[in-house]
């Protein structure tokens, strides 16, 4: 049995629950026959990929849903094998080049060349071009992006590219300018309520209002998360009544406690302790930006008003460094030390003024 998130996902542009304007626009684009390269961006769980698949269906019809999953093997320059999962139909192909790490350029080049050099042979096909969907485009290396840029121009005649990213900040300008940018914003709370209601109806039960609002509050605009939580809740207590506490994933609770550690004591020894916790989080595959964001939010909840802005400023500052740098732990730790020192000085200064 598949997850509700996958099971009840809308399949056509018409059945999408929110961002109607965007759906309209996509529909007319698909009909126009002059379909551009596209870049979908927005926070996770907002429905980017759902919209991409719906657009594909609009473009090619139901045939696009006949998928097969391949595993392709690429040879890196040092003759190491890279296995990449590829999902494809007759009309499109979906890849996640970042799976190949620093060899993503290789994957991009090979696949795009292959696609671009084959014409659409199906005479009944609605479109003359094939579509390449590139997931996690914002983690493409600069090399890969440069490679992409060239191919986008060269093979425009029989291929379109749809990029999917969380933010455009990591994409180079030439790529952004070659794409039609589609921002998929996170759904509003009411929209999320509607979707949750829809899902529970399809799953065959009634969702109490308070549970729904609790889930929505907790999810922070991430619809996927909300539906997953709903499913987990339903599994734990099938009647969904009484006092319901939403169990957070372990790592979130963990981040919470790390924030406690930071606020409760500021010393070099505590820095070491927090470092171990960060290592632990990192080794559980939690992306470092997520760690930094979550811990920073928790810390901000716990400190004086006047410190909040500064703490967030430094979180942003070290997040940028983290993206450029190699060893995430340095930046996480630098932020922690910064916050600790800010916090300590804050109290220290108060003490001094008390003396005067």
């Amino acid at each position, binding site marked *: 049995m598949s997850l509700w998130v996958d099971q009840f996902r809308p399949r056509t542009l018409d059945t999408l629950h929110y961002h109607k304007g965007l759906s309209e626009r996509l529909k007319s684009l698909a009909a126009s026959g002059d379909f551009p390269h596209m870049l979908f961006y927005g926070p996770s769980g907002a429905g980017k990929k759902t919209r991409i698949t719906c657009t594909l269906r609009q473009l090619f019809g139901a045939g696009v849903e006949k998928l097969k999953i391949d595993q392709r093997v690429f040879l890196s320059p040092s003759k190491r094998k890279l296995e990449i999962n590829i999902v494809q139909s007759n009309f499109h192909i979906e890849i996640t080049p970042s799976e190949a790490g620093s060899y993503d350029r290789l994957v991009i080049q090979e696949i795009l060349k292959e696609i671009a050099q084959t014409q659409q042979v199906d005479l009944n096909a609605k479109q003359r071009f094939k579509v390449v969907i590139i997931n996690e485009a914002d983690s493409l290396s600069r090399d890969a992006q440069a490679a992409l840029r060239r191919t986008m121009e060269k093979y425009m005649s029989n291929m379109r590219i749809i990029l999917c990213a969380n933010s455009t900040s990591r994409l180079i300008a030439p790529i952004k300018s070659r794409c039609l940018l589609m921002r998929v914003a996170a759904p509003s709370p009411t929209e999320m309520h509607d979707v949750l209601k829809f899902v529970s109806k399809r799953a065959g039960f009634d969702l109490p209002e308070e549970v729904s609002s609790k889930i929505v509050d907790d999810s922070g605009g991430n619809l996927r998360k909300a539906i997953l939580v709903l499913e987990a809740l339903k599994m734990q207590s099938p009647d969904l009544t009484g006092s319901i506490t939403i169990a957070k994933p372990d790592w979130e609770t963990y981040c919470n406690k790390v924030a406690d550690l930071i606020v409760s004591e500021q010393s070099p020894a505590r820095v070491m302790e927090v470092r171990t916790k960060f290592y632990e989080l990192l*080794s559980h595959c939690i992306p470092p930006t997520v760690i930094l964001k979550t811990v920073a939010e928790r810390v901000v909840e716990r400190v004086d008003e006047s410190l909040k802005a500064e703490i967030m400023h430094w979180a942003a500052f070290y997040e940028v460094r983290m993206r450029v740098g190699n060893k995430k732990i340095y930046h996480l730790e630098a932020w922690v030390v910064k916050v600790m020192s800010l916090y300590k000085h804050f109290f220290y200064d108060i003490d001094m003024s008390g003396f005067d």
Partner: protein
Amino acid sequence: MSQGVVKGKGKEKETEKLKAERRENEADDRLWVDMYEPTTEAELAVHVKKVEDVRRWISEAFDGGPSGKLKKYRRILALSGPAGTGKTSTVRVLAREMGFEILEWRNVIGEASNITFDDSGENHASGSSSSFNPLEDYDSDYESLFTKFETFLNRASSCQNIFASSASSSKAPSPPQFHSSTSKPKSPSIQSSGSPGAKKHVILLEDLPNILHARTQAQFHAALNSLVSSLPSEPPVPVIIIVSDAGVRGEAGDDVGTGGSGLSRGGWGRDRDRDVVDVRTVLGKELLNSPYVTQVVFNPIAVTLMRKALQALLSTHFSSYSVSLRCATPSKDVLEIIITSANGDIRSAIMALQFACVVELQPRKGKKGKEKNSAEKVIMEAITRREQGLHLFHLMGRLLYNKRKGDPPNPRATTKDIQKDRDLDAGLQDPPKPPPHLREHERRTSRVDVDLLYADSPIDSSLFSLYIHQNYTQFCDDLDQCEGVAEALSWVDSNGGEAWYQGNPHRFHLLALGTLHALPSPVPRRSQKLFKPEFFHFLQKEKDAWDGVRDARRWVVDETLGGNAIAWRAGGWSKSDVAVELGGILKSRDTTSLMTSRPPASHRLFSRMPFALGSNERGQQLGEGEVNGGEEEEEEELGIWGVGKKDEVHNGGWLEGDDIDDFE
């Protein structure tokens, strides 16, 4: 200008003189290292205990020890240690003293070279060289070098060499008979030496086949394994393998590869070729841990032992060579410089000594004693300077103790050390006072020469930064100092581009200076202990967890495929989505028994995170060097940052922090 000319002439004359001297006694050509090779145990500069270890092992291998049963387990002896610590000499001396014969394997470079060298240095062609025919050389019987090695190993360990005694006793110019029986004339030569009439043999492997080639390595391991698993022949032929720990400076590989970004995305960064020859690569992990292998680690030769050995060498040299008395015995200072700069490498010390005796070191007249001394020092340093000057432990100590001009001396320091510090301080210039708004950055002049640290550092900047990161907190008094170091680490790490060539070339200096600037001065002594970075441990964990993520994702996709006839949105789950958001559902699926399909158990690697307060496991301590087989191995296999672990490895526990000063 004119002075230069005069000098040049002087030099010319000198070389002329030397040449003349050379012509007088051709025998002098040989290196002192060969000429004065130790012949008795007393002459060996190796620590008595190590020699005793080797001796006991060899006697146990032949006689089986007191119980007579040890023979089975004394099959392979691995001698490791830095270059020039007398590993080979020990074996040769023991061969002479205990009366066994050494069969040695030598790789031949190029198939055509059929010249063998024997002990005396004369070379002679083996029998068929006169009828050398290139066509013959590449006939169908061609054996790869490795096949030859295997043949050698088999025959040497199982067959008795009936002619060996006669061959070695007569020192005949023909290669040992054993050799011709091995296979062809073009095969590598086997050298046998030792006392005449010896019946016992030892196989000495020093010149190993190309271990770095993966297949050769596997073959080599297989050959050794089969050797070990078969019963010892009678009389037993133990194998002695000598491996010099060649420290590799990770400079070229500095941050090559993808770093963390690559890993967190896909984890393809593994499998980097391990390009370090050490005992572990040579013997393999299993073999090294098996009872058949004994490892003896040689330490760098102690200063006192080396001084004794060098003095003995000098006295023999100058008593026997009256001719060369013209160039004077090197002064005591020179000897001291040689000893200190050799870092326990006696071979390099003897080389330097020979050089010091061949070249006239005394500068022209009219210079003062001190200047002369410093000039000598410059020359000697130039010839004896070695890449790997500093041991990691001392490197970190020097940096983290942040000594500055005018530091109060250590209560345990000797007057000599204090004087040394004072001399050092006298040479250091005070920096100009910073303007008032930069007062907070005022520091006393540092006694640490960062350029020197960089030159001597055994590790690259990436590993260096990890070591600083692991250890800096203990050396800080308060958070502001921590902040300085953390900021430096963060800045240096994020400085530079994606590719290795975009990296900041001054990383090492920036790190070292940033750390020095931030640390308190003087650093309070709290008997800090240095640790190895935990980074690699967690990296390994992360990699395992990513495998878990992969499994979980496959599960999700399979679920989707199974549930609907039409595969829909199969690629919809990105890895980080799985790691971050799927945890809750996986947990509840685990607990409810109603579900027909359960997620793979490996998801717990990333979804389960119990929070344990204070479980502050601190990883391994960095000793001044220690040998450990287990954990370090894993760290090396990672090699993601293009660096293995290159701790200077030799025996001994960790030192108290205060001992670091004594070393300086």
